[in-house]
Structures are given as structure tokens and as C-alpha cells.
């Protein structure tokens, strides 16, 4: 299979979905003429014209509102909030409007919206361009949240998001942006709400998402050399959580590590740990372990940022701790 970089897979998904359905449109800061602040929408303006691909002013609330209104009036908008941190400026439209319109209209309004956003973690982007705020969005009924970890997943999940009848937030990791791997050509979707075992194992489960998946896989590989078989469960979708997949894996391994870049307290790892404590406590042969960022804003300076984000070695250590190894 031909290989694509992550951003090229995103670009391909957008091309294909816009060609498939002329209600699909794209708007955001620098997405049209410049082809996207990071290249994801290159070529779309030329192909689909100035009314389906729009550069917007720097107005995150209006960008999200644009999606809500356009969806209500019959389109299937894809909009970009450049960094996840900037979602803070669009929270009313995303949370009070997009997420609730279907419910509060008794199902009479529907919002097939895709909101693309980048998580800048791990690139010395500093405290306002690096946050992992996914847990917020998962706490909001009415939204779906996906976070791909490979170029193929990026393509397949984005296409599913565009076809979903609900608002879906797609988070991409800037640190995966130029990673390259095989991506199926043409029609290829990945179901929203399903996790994938990216590496099977029997001794412990590591749950991860997005850019944490490669680190979890690296840890698993190193542990395998010591005879420890780690199962790496890539959630792919954070909301709705694939509870069955998590429960099944824990029922197999009896040990659970959750790894994420977000600060540990009140992060998505909490929900997964809580679900196990609530529904499968007996399956656990050891305490649950969360490997996550400390409770601080993201520091800029490389040694601080290096100490901030959990590395493969910490996942490795956590697994060993649970195994008493």
C-alpha cells in the first residue's frame, strides 16, 4: 500500500468527502487560499471553489457558529479551530449550541458537523498551544470525540466524522503530523466508537490515544524483550468510549495502565479507571496506574516540557510496577 504522511491522509479524506457530497464544505483560519496553516487543505479551494472552501477571520466563536448554522440550513460543514487551546473561544457554540441542539429540539434539529483541531503537545509550543483538553469535550453529551494515531486512522476517522449526523470533534496531534505509513486508497472508513488493539498482549493493558499510542507501542516493544506481553489498546474514539473493548482487555490482562498527555487529575484516564472500579473491580490484580502529565500548565522550556509529558519509559515503569517486576 502507498504511504502517506499524516497530513496528506487528512487532505485526502477532505478531498474525497467533498467530492462525494456537495453539502460538505470547509471553513477556518487560513484554510482556503493558504491551504491550511499546516497544509491539510491544500488544493481544496481550487477544486471546490470559493463558496465551499472559506478563509475566515480570526473569530473562533463565529467559526463554530458558522458550522452550527450551516448544518441547520442543510450543509455538512467541516470547520477548523486551529489549536485545541483555542476551543476555549468557541466553547459556547460547541457545547451550548452544537452539542445540545438535537436534544433540546427533541430531535428536530440535526447537526452533521465536523470540527477539526490540533493538539500541539510536545513541540515546545508553550502553555497556550499545547493543551490536551479532550476530557472536557468527552464530558459533553451530544458531541463525539475522535483522536487518530496513524495516517490511515486519520483518513478513516475523518471520513466517518464527516458522514456522522452529529457534531464530531477530530483531534490531530501536531507531533504526528509528518509521520508516514500506509493508507488505503479511496473508500475507507473507520467506525466511530470502536477501539483497536494495536498490539495484543496478555500481561497488562495500556490504554492510549493519538500521539501517546506510538509511545505505548514503544514501551510494549521494550517490555516484550523482557518477556512481558503488553496489550496496547488505541481508543481511536474518546467519546463514546468503547467500554466493551476496555473491559474485554482488562478481563484478559487484569492490569491496567492509562497513558495520556493531559494533566492527570480529571483527565480521560480518570473515566477509564472509574469505569473499571465501578464495573470490573474484581478483574484487577493490581492497582490501576495513570501515566499522565503533572498538574501544571505546559511549560515552554525544553527540559521542563521534556519532564512534563509522559514518555515510553514511564509507561514501561508503570507496567513493571503493576507486575511487581
Amino acid at each position: 500500500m502507498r504511504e502517506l504522511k499524516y497530513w496528506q491522509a487528512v487532505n485526502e479524506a477532505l478531498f474525497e468527502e467533498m467530492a462525494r457530497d456537495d453539502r460538505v464544505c470547509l471553513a477556518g483560519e487560513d484554510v482556503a487560499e493558504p491551504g491550511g496553516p499546516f497544509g491539510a487543505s491544500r488544493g481544496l479551494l481550487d477544486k471546490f471553489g470559493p463558496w465551499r472552501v472559506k478563509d475566515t477571520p480570526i473569530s473562533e466563536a463565529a467559526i463554530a457558529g458558522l458550522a452550527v448554522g450551516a448544518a441547520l440550513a442543510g450543509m455538512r460543514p467541516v470547520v477548523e479551530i486551529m489549536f485545541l487551546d483555542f476551543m476555549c473561544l468557541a466553547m459556547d457554540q460547541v457545547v451550548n449550541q452544537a452539542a445540545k441542539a438535537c436534544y433540546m429540539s427533541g430531535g428536530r434539529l440535526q447537526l452533521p458537523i465536523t470540527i477539526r483541531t490540533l493538539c500541539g503537545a510536545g513541540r515546545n509550543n508553550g502553555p497556550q498551544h499545547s493543551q490536551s483538553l479532550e476530557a472536557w469535550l468527552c464530558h459533553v453529551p451530544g458531541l463525539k470525540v475522535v483522536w487518530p494515531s496513524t495516517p490511515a486512522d486519520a483518513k478513516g476517522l475523518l471520513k466517518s466524522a464527516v458522514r456522522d449526523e452529529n457534531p464530531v470533534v477530530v483531534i490531530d496531534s501536531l507531533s504526528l503530523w509528518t509521520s508516514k505509513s500506509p493508507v488505503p486508497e479511496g473508500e475507507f472508513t473507520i467506525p466511530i466508537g470502536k477501539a483497536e488493539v494495536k498490539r495484543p498482549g496478555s500481561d497488562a493493558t495500556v490504554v492510549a490515544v493519538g500521539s501517546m499510542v506510538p509511545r505505548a507501542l514503544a514501551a510494549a516493544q521494550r517490555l516484550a524483550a523482557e518477556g512481558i506481553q503488553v496489550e496496547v489498546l488505541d481508543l481511536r474514539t474518546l467519546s463514546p468510549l468503547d467500554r466493551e473493548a476496555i473491559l474485554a482487555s482488562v478481563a484478559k490482562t487484569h492490569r491496567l495502565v492509562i497513558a495520556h498527555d493531559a494533566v492527570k487529575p480529571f483527565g480521560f484516564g480518570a473515566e477509564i479507571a472509574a469505569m473499571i472500579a465501578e464495573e470490573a473491580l474484581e478483574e484487577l490484580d493490581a492497582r490501576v496506574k495513570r501515566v499522565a502529565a503533572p498538574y501544571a500548565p505546559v511549560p515552554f522550556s525544553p527540559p521542563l516540557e521534556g519532564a512534563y509529558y509522559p514518555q515510553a519509559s514511564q509507561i514501561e515503569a508503570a507496567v513493571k510496577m503493576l507486575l511487581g517486576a
Partner: protein
Amino acid sequence: MTKMGEGQGTSSTGSAPPGQLSRQRLLHLYRVMATIRRFEEVACQLLVDGKIPATLHASIGQEAVAAGVCEALEPADLIVTNHRGHGHCIAKGVDLKAMMAELMGKASGTNRGRGGSMHIADPAQGILGANGIVGGGIPIAVGAAYACRARESGQIVVCFFGDGAANEGGCHEAMNLASLWELPILFVCENNQYAEMTPQRVHTRVKDLSVRAGAYDMPGASVDGNDVVAVYAAVEAAVRRARAGGGPMLIECKTFRVRGHFEGDPQRYKTAEEVARWKEKDPLTLLKTSLTGPGGIPAGELEAIQQEIESAVREAVAFAEAAPLPSPDEVLTHVYAGA
């Protein structure tokens, strides 16, 4: 059209509009306004009687805005409204029964009881939703106008919002975008002198909110919002312009919130003088007077309309009272589309 002010530094659709409305249309406007008035009077009483939960934001005194604006629209056109939106919905054609049922939280309400007064939506009538977030509808309306333009549907969007909402950031972002893209939308700012208990002068320095149109190089005008013909004329011209691709416009309608911010508000902040002054400008009385004045129709004709309205509202109440409440085990229905 009583022009009370005009967007400074903006061109304006001030050219004399075809302000002459047939008697038939005036009677229709009367019917709409009187329906809004009666519907809300009755709803307020139902609230006091404990038949409507929570609270209501009545638009009594502001009926000319809703009626005048919607008279200039086609059925396919779209509106986005706010927490004080009963009148806008009625003028746009919502079913009174379904709306009254919604106020009572009934399963046969417009929103199946999930929204209540602040969230009325009826896409079949082009009502994309009221909103509990002040200013929350403005970017949404612009999004809808974008879709109308991009899909060349020929529709116009009207966005209703209050004087208070004009100070929300989303209002600015949305107007900039609408004017930049020349979208088919009218921003109708219903300046009823107050945002909750705060009078306009305490929340905004400009007197005519329509001057803000100039910040986006968009025409703006302020009209007497209690004069339904003036409202209609201003909006009709703006609609023609927008439908022809001329882009958006901001129309401020100066009016008065006769009742409290919410039903039950003791309104200590209003002066007797201002209440009396605005009472003389009651939009329904003004229209009635002009309709029944010299050379006008016999008062009996309006009486007949009033009777029809009375029974329509009664019917709505009867329907709503008889309607079933949603079942508690449906609390998870409609969180996601088709679910």
C-alpha cells in the same frame, strides 16, 4: 417609516420604501400582533397558575417588530431568535398548540418538552431555534445565511437579538463575517431599552445601536419598533437588497419591554414616567387606532379577529393541557441524531 437614526458613516437603505400596505395586509399584521399579545398574556397567567414550569420572558409591547419583520419574509426564509422569541415564532408561523405544549414541557411540544420557552425550534416553519444564551444565535444565523448563499437557495435569514446581546463578542465576529462575505442576512436588534435590569445607557455608550453597522461597512438603520409599518418598510427594503445579493444590514428597532425581564420580576428599576410614555406608544393600540380611524374599518371587524384569536389561544391551551408529558424513561432519547 420613522427613521430615528442611521448608521453613522454607512450607506443606508433610506430611500423611500413602498411603505403603503394594503388594508388586508394591515389586518393580517394586526392579527399577528394581537395573537402574540394574547398568547403571551395567557402564558403569563398559566405560569402564575403553576401550569408552566420555571419562567417566561414575555415580549409584550414588542409585537410590531416580530410582525413587521416576518411580514417581509417568504415562508422558506429562516429566522433565528433569542430567549424572548415567542412573538418571532408566532409571526413566522409556529403552531400555537405545539408552542404552548412546549412551554408546559409536554411531549407534543415543538421540542418534545426538552427545551421549553427559551428553545422553541420549528424547522418546518424556518424557525432554526430560540436560544438561552444571550447572543448565541447570532453566529448561528450567519452560518445559516452562509449555507443559503453557498447553496444559492434564495433564502434570507433574519437574526433577532436584543440590545444587551449586541455587546457579546459573538455578535461582532458574526457581523464582520456576514458583511465580509455579503451574506443574505438581516440583523434585527430589538432594542427594548433594557438588558435584564440594566438600562441601555449602563451597558452601551452609543445611542443608536445601528451605528455599529459602520464597523463592518454594512448599512444600518434605526426605526421605530412600535410602528409596524415602519418596521415592515425598513425590513422589506433590506430583504430585497439582500435577496439581490447586496449583503447584510443591521436594523435596530426601538421598542420597550413592557413586562419584567422574566415573569415575576418586580421591575423596581423602571420609572413611572417611562412606563407611561411607552404606554402611549403601545404598538397594538397604535395600529388599531390607525385601522379604525377616519376612513378605516369598523371596530367590529377587529373584534371579530380578536374573537378568533381568543379561541385559537384557548384551543392551544386546551391542547397543551391535555397533551401527555414525556415519559421519564425517554431522558436519553434525542441526545444524538436518530437515537
